[in-house]
């Protein structure tokens, strides 16, 4: 049973900035956003990833339920990890951190249905998430990844340009993260690499590679596609406000 719809807050499109035209969007002569225009660039000539993005599928990315959906042959699980996913599925994914208003971590957040705003300035790519009104920082200022960091849900991320692709490395994850609703695990040994490529104004491709030898016998990759969400903005979403679902998450 798919539990995540239980924690979606049904917000109505009343008159906040849900329909405010986004400044600076290229438009066709009839005023519609021109998503096929070339990707914008910052003053230093790099692609500008800034914008409000949502899964291309409009709703959750299909990999949100099962991240292995498009991985030929399935994921290269260590035996304990395969058993864990089976056990979680058998128990109706009742311990999915999403259902307990916990952070989802950077991989699952790319797949989440709610919009996210990327803001790119020199030295920093900031991502603001509608889900739980939270944020993630990706440092582009040349700093190294920290050694022996305090573990976090999002870990620590540094990025640099490889041509027109932004390559981001992240480590320092706390143990026990879920990569999807099925409960595919990520451990504290993981190193996650993302490659962001904005191939035109309206489209962003994110290749994610998970290198986690505690849970998998070799690294594996997925691709995430997002599109611009023009002329709107994020709402506030506070998962733990008036939270009533948890007593019902009892599994089998």
């Amino acid at each position: 049973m798919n539990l995540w719809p239980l924690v979606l807050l049904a917000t109505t499109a009343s008159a906040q900035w849900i329909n405010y035209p986004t400044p600076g969007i290229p438009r066709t002569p009839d005023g519609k956003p021109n998503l096929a225009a070339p990707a914008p660039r910052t003053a230093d000539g790099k692609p500008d990833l800034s914008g409000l993005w949502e899964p291309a599928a409009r709703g959750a990315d299909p990999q949100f339920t099962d991240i292995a959906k498009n991985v030929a042959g399935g994921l290269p699980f260590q035996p304990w990890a395969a058993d864990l996913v089976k056990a979680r599925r058998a128990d109706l994914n009742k311990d999915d951190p999403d259902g307990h208003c916990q952070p989802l971590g950077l991989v699952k957040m790319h797949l989440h249905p709610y919009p996210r705003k990327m803001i790119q300035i020199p030295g920093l790519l900031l991502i603001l998430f509608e889900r739980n009104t939270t944020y993630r920082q990706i440092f582009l200022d040349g700093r190294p990844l920290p050694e022996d960091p305090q573990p976090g849900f999002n870990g620590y991320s540094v990025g640099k340009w490889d041509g027109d692709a932004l390559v981001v490395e992240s480590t320092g994850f706390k143990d026990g993260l879920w990569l999807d609703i099925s409960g595919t695990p990520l451990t504290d040994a993981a190193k996650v690499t993302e490659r962001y490529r904005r191939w035109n104004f309206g489209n962003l491709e994110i290749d994610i590679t998970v290198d986690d030898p505690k849970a998998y016998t070799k690294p594996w990759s997925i691709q995430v596609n997002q599109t611009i969400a023009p002329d709107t903005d994020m709402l506030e979403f506070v998962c733990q406000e008036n939270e009533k679902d948890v007593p019902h998450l009892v599994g089998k």
Partner: protein
Amino acid sequence: MIKLILTLAAGAGMASAQWLNYPTAGIPRTRDGKPNLSAAAPKMADGKPDLSGVWMADGQTYFFDLAAGLKPEDVVMLPWAKELQQKRIDNEHGDDPLSRCLPHGVPRVNTNGLFPFKIVQTPGLVVILYEQMNLFRQIFLDGRTLAKDLNPTWLGYSTGRWDGDTLVIETSGLNGKAWLDTQKSRPATDALRVTERFRRTNFGTLEVVATINDPKTYAKPWTTTTQKMFLQLDTDILEFICNENEKDLPHMPVGK
């Protein structure tokens, strides 16, 4: 040779832990290399003051009592509000939504001097990232107006404009559930409109003043005294997930 060893030692120190000791770029320095926090405030390319940086309130004075430094006649609560305030104080502010991992509201979110916040400034948008509760606020400087009939929220909807060197932020669409302060437990309603004025007086100091305008709660608007925020060097905001392994709730005082 000694200089090289010292540099290597310093480098090893900086790479440890997380980015709590990573040097902040672009700090003006005195001739002996120390940070010069009384240097002039920096400006953006468009000439506007640049408020970017990691800041923290000086202590918790305004977090405990937003009206600190004001005279009693400056803050006039309507009778229902005074009653509610007293109830909250009698209950040792055990019902504070903040202690249930719900957002602080505005302007309280700026006031807790135990946690830093980071201002990220772009021409049309100022974003504030708050370490406590891992929240953000967006302040739109692109000329949009605050809509009517706003879906009420904890942190509201904010627009900003420049008044000389001061960023004036107007916020409405607040849900009235957040308390204005802690020990004084002051209430507000969804009629609340807050005006914050942020002024970077020098490189290392931000002065903030907030006006509370809530005719359903206070007989007249009132404005806080000046709260100072200080630039935090060589550090960054950490992840803070309030409801992770939360154990305090069963121990909170319940209403009498």
